[in-house]
Structure formats: structure tokens, C-alpha cells
């Protein structure tokens, strides 16, 4: 049992209240700032008729950004967002290069040069009934 004078006790209570109310206010402000007003980002892209992409074609779609591949086995797609910190990749002779911190990926999306650590993520492709290519980014 420590000797706590009445004055010290009151001071402690006062400080406790100050800290508590401050923390509550801060928490409120942080929650206030954590609202997402804008509609969710578009995750579905209609790429047009599948006949536009012949077998063997590799089409870079810079506005998504993604690479649409049509191989013998069917359609597939790779995200062209750098897995390091999210810049758009540019195509070069041996694959894809990132302008921001010079990561490099080969044509299959594997890292050939850091700092990126993860390979490019594959994106889902769906062929609709009327033979249109639909790309999903999530």
C-alpha cells in the first residue's frame, strides 16, 4: 500500500481522464477519416469479341493494365501492375520492366530482377455466351 495523498490521487484521476478522453477523440477522428465515399473501383472489363485476339496473340492493355494471352490452351491474362509498389510495367524485348525502381519480369511474369519479390499475378478471364472476352481484376 503506497501512501497516496488526496492531492496526488486527484491529479492522477485528472490525468487519467485527460488521456482517456484524448484517446477517444483521436479514435473518433481516425474512424471519421476511414470512410470510403467513392464507388468501388471497376474490376470487370469487356475486351470485345474473342475473334479480335487470334491464337498466339499477346495484347498489352495499358489502361487496365494487363496482358491478354491467347494460347492454344485458351485465354489467360497477367496483371501488368508491378508487385513491388504498384507502377505500370512497360514491355521490352525480354519481358516487362518497371520504370520506378527497375524491377524486371520475364514474359511469363516471373521476377528476373529485383526489388520486386512476387511474380505478376494472373487475372481471371471469362468468355461470355456471345463470345466476348471479359477480364476480372479481382
Amino acid at each position: 500500500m503506497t501512501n497516496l495523498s488526496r492531492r496526488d490521487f486527484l491529479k492522477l484521476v485528472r490525468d487519467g481522464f485527460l488521456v482517456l478522453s484524448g484517446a477517444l477523440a483521436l479514435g473518433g477522428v481516425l474512424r471519421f477519416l476511414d470512410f470510403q465515399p467513392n464507388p468501388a473501383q471497376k474490376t470487370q472489363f469487356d475486351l470485345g469479341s474473342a475473334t479480335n485476339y487470334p491464337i498466339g496473340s499477346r495484347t498489352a492493355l495499358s489502361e487496365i493494365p494487363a496482358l491478354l494471352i491467347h494460347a492454344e490452351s485458351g485465354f489467360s491474362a497477367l496483371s501488368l501492375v508491378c508487385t513491388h509498389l504498384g507502377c505500370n510495367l512497360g514491355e521490352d524485348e525480354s519481358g516487362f520492366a518497371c520504370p520506378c525502381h527497375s524491377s524486371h519480369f520475364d514474359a511469363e511474369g516471373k521476377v528476373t530482377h529485383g526489388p520486386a519479390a512476387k511474380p505478376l499475378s494472373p487475372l481471371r478471364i471469362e468468355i461470355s455466351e456471345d463470345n466476348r472476352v471479359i477480364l476480372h481484376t479481382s
Partner: protein
Amino acid sequence: MYFFILHLSSFILFPMPPSFFHHLHPPTIPTAQARWRHTLAAGGTAIFLMLILGVTGILEMFYYAPNPAEAALSVQTITYHVPFGGFIRNLHYWAAQALIVVSAVHFLRVIFTAAYGHPRRFNYLLGLALFVVSIMLDFTGYILRWDVDICWPLTTGTNLLKTIPVIGDFLYRIAVGGNEVCETALLRFYTWHIFGLTILVVILGVWHAFRVRRDGGIAVPPPQLRADVTRIPRDELVRREVLTMFIVSIGLILLSIFVPAPIAAAMSVSIRESVTESVDVRAPWFFLWVQQMLKWGDPFIFGVLIPSIILALLALIPYIFPQPNEAEIGSWFPKSNRLAQIIVAIIGTIIIILTFINR
């Protein structure tokens, strides 16, 4: 713009009656420590630059439209159409860049003259906080251009937040107002820039200046240990300050006339759609060293952890490093705080080297 020079030179050429401005100063200050070669006039210049930033910033607000569709266009309007608009924007830009440089010089002066010792330890922390907030102001201001050249620094800078364990995603959402950098981000950066961070700088700045007076003015050894005990009156100090402001103004005006602030094509509504091969991928100059480190690997370690460790180390200098000897306070390169000087010199050199080897 010449009115500005005219205005300041009238202070220098003609004696002014003592005013409120004089009363912000102590009646006398020590001669040795009032010399330019001692203070490098850096702290005072920083205050002056902040005043310029406030005035030019308010003027820019009359035209700037903080929404993604109009932001870059309104910057173009200010720059190319509004009378003196380009000049005012250039002044704002150059004063902001100069503020970073001058603050760094002020910091180095404080370290290399051992001016941070007790009782100025807390004020040292205030100064460091001011420096950090000034850099944040510079970065948010740069983002407000909302042209294609800010795309990647904005994307990578905010994605860096995401790499922080546990609270990263939350911080990211708070910073950009959503799960992607889009419309909401600009309004957030705008509000932080013109209000949140600015208020913080004003509070910290006033506090910092007040503590200088509270802690006994400029750092000097106690009177019995001083070689030169003469003092100059405040009129003389004010005269030197006005002269400094005059020189700084001329420098800023020349820069603003001959070297325009950067501007690029407007961004279209989505960031990803607006970038082409030709956009600038380089971070703003004061972050080039971080961008260089990011090329080495894990973004959290190189982009968040190392800069934070450096900051923490600098903040601890007055608390854990060998303390400056009283007799040496306020003289250049004292022996007693060598360790702090060496560490700051090494960190500074590395940052400068990294900045320059980044392409």
C-alpha cells in the same frame, strides 16, 4: 514583383521607428553568436520563407480547384493566364524547396555548434518535428499539381504505407480515402496541405521560436566561460535580419523569374489511364534517396524502416549521446559532442550520395 524589393529596401535605407517586430527580439544578444558565420542566418530565413509560403499559398487558393477534373487545369490557369500567377506560383515553389534546404542547414548548424544540449533538448525535438512536417507539406503540395508526372510518386508513396505490418491498410485508407488512389485522395492531400499540416507548422513554429527565448536565447556558454562578453542591441539584430530577408528575396525573385516550377500535362480521371512512357518516374528531389534505396529490395525495410530509424536516431542525439561541454556550447565543431557530429555527417553524406546516384 519589384515592389517587394522596394518595400524591403525601404527598411534598410531609412531608419524605422521601433515596432512590434523589434519587440519580438531580446533587447541585446551576444555579439559572437549573432554573427552570420555562426548562425548562418538559417533559422530566421526559415521563418521568412514560411511567411512567403503563407502569402503566396493563400493567393494560389483563389484559383486552385481541388478536384481531379480541374486541378491540373487550374494550375495551368494560375501559371499561364493569371497576371503574376506564374511568378507567384514559382515563388511558392522555390520558397518551399529553399525551406527544406535552409532547415537542413539550420539542423546541421545546431549539431555542429552543439547548440542542442540541456536545456534546449526539447526545442531540438520541436525543430526536428518542424522539419518532418515541412517535408510532408512539400510532398502534399507537389501532389496538388495532379499532372501526369506525380502519378508514380503518389502511387508508390502511398503503397509504401500498405507495407507497414498490422496498421498499413488502415493508414493507407486514411491517407487516400479509399482502397485505390482516386478522386478522394486529391481532396485529402489538399486539406492536409492547406490546413492540417499548415496549422501544425504554425503551432510548432511559434512554440519553437518561443522556446528559443524561454531557453535563454541563442546557445552560448555561461558568462564566466565566455571569451567575448560583448552584446549587440536589438536594432542591430533587426537590421541584419532585414538585410538577410532582402538577400533571400532577391535570390527567390531571380529563381522565380528564370527557373519556372515544374508542370506537366493534366492527368485524366484515372491514374492508370493517364500514364504514358514519357512520364517522370522520379520522386521529388527530397525523396530521391528513398527511391534509390527502394531499388534494393523489401519496400518496408528500405522505404519505411530505415528512414524511421534515421529519424529516431537524430531525435535521440540530445538524450543518449555524449553531451556537449558547457564551455564549448555555441562554438563550431566542439570536441565534446564529436560522436553526434560524426554520425550526422555520415548520415548526411549517405543521403546526398544516394540522391545523386539515383540515375
